[in-house]
């Protein structure tokens, strides 16, 4: 089996995997980082969004081997276990989630937006969230959370 090596949340990891192993399977099943979710498995829903070398990607639509040598960041990297990241705190404060299934992907997605656009407008947030489906909240509070989170991050 081919060997894949990458940095995940700052830690160097390496494993032998089948070539068909998806990045999300590697993250969840080999690294036990189960915060990254699989919703649709058809590249639509965005529950599996992680960062690859600083850009958000759908980890269900990438092979683990394609991330060889890359730097991957997942939802687990955000909080130190005591304090929430300002974006996570904003989602809590503004009821940006109900069941929470899509939330890790949404948060990772919007952190990519905020890194390029520290103070996004409502329209910009809505447009950016094209690739994240939430079946509970109707997005209204998600948008509020993102704008509050961006502001708290200093935007």
């Amino acid at each position, binding site marked *: 089996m081919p060997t894949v090596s990458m940095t995940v949340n700052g830690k160097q990891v390496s494993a032998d995997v089948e070539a068909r192993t998806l990045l999300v399977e590697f993250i969840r099943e080999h690294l036990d980082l189960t915060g990254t979710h699989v919703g649709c498995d058809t590249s639509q829903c965005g529950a599996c969004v992680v960062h690859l070398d600083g850009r958000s*990607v759908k980890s269900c639509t990438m092979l683990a081997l394609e991330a060889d040598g890359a730097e991957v960041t997942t939802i687990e990297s955000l909080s130190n276990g005591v304090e929430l990241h300002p974006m996570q705190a904003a989602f809590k404060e503004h009821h940006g989630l109900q069941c929470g299934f899509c939330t890790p992907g949404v948060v990772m997605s919007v952190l990519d937006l905020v890194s390029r656009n520290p103070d996004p407008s409502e329209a910009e947030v809505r447009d950016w969230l094209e690739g994240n489906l939430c079946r509970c909240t109707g997005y209204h509070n998600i948008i509020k959370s993102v704008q509050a989170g961006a502001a708290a991050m200093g935007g």
Partner: protein
Amino acid sequence: MENFEFHGPSTLDQALAAMGAAEDGKFMAGGQSLLPVMKLELAAPSDVISLAGIEALRGIEADGTTVTIGSAVTHAEVHESEAVRQAIPALADMAGGIGDPQVRNRGTIGGAVAHADPAADYPAALVGLGATVVTDRREISAEDFFQGMFDTPLEDDEIITAVRFPVPERAAYAKFANQASGYAIAGVMVASGDAGIRVAVTGAGSCVFRVTAMEEALAADFSAAALQGIAVDSGDLISEPDASAEYRAHLVSVMARRAVEACG
């Protein structure tokens, strides 16, 4: 998804050699079309040869009259490129309207062109702007390249290396997107320049096509008003439960007028 052998070549020659040695190999660029197809087991290649690590397929060059985009350049990179925005803003805008940010961060121009999805955006841009598809062995004009639904003249072992666009005097793209996927139900690129005046339509038919009647009307009077009353024949268009052929024909006229207006 069936298992396969994975190759990560760093040169074109290595990629071609891996393909030559494979029983049933497939190139992969961003994987945003190929992986979904493989997950559905509509494709089960013996070997997947990634083009992502080949430096020669990256990079954007602009020289005032042409813009050449390496095949492994992502939609996000085209969208964000200052050089593309300066030369062909319609192309930068179009790339920014493909799918969603995550798809744009992985999906590439070469992959989109090779895949030739009838609802994809790039076919309209290539035909509308009069682009040339450059491969490892030849050059093919966009109009000869898109032959039908998922149908191109590419050989199984042929690699698109770049797409070359002439810089138009003016151009704009207007798309009516499928709510769920972002793909075009009807997308129209209108351009005028050395390649003449062109109106290229994607999404509505089984393959990108030009609307000569609209092109002639615009040649006489480049205005949205000149398109009034000109429609495409719905008999040639795709009909689906969420968008009938008649609806698509209507959308083509509306998108064409919007694109002309956006040309300014």
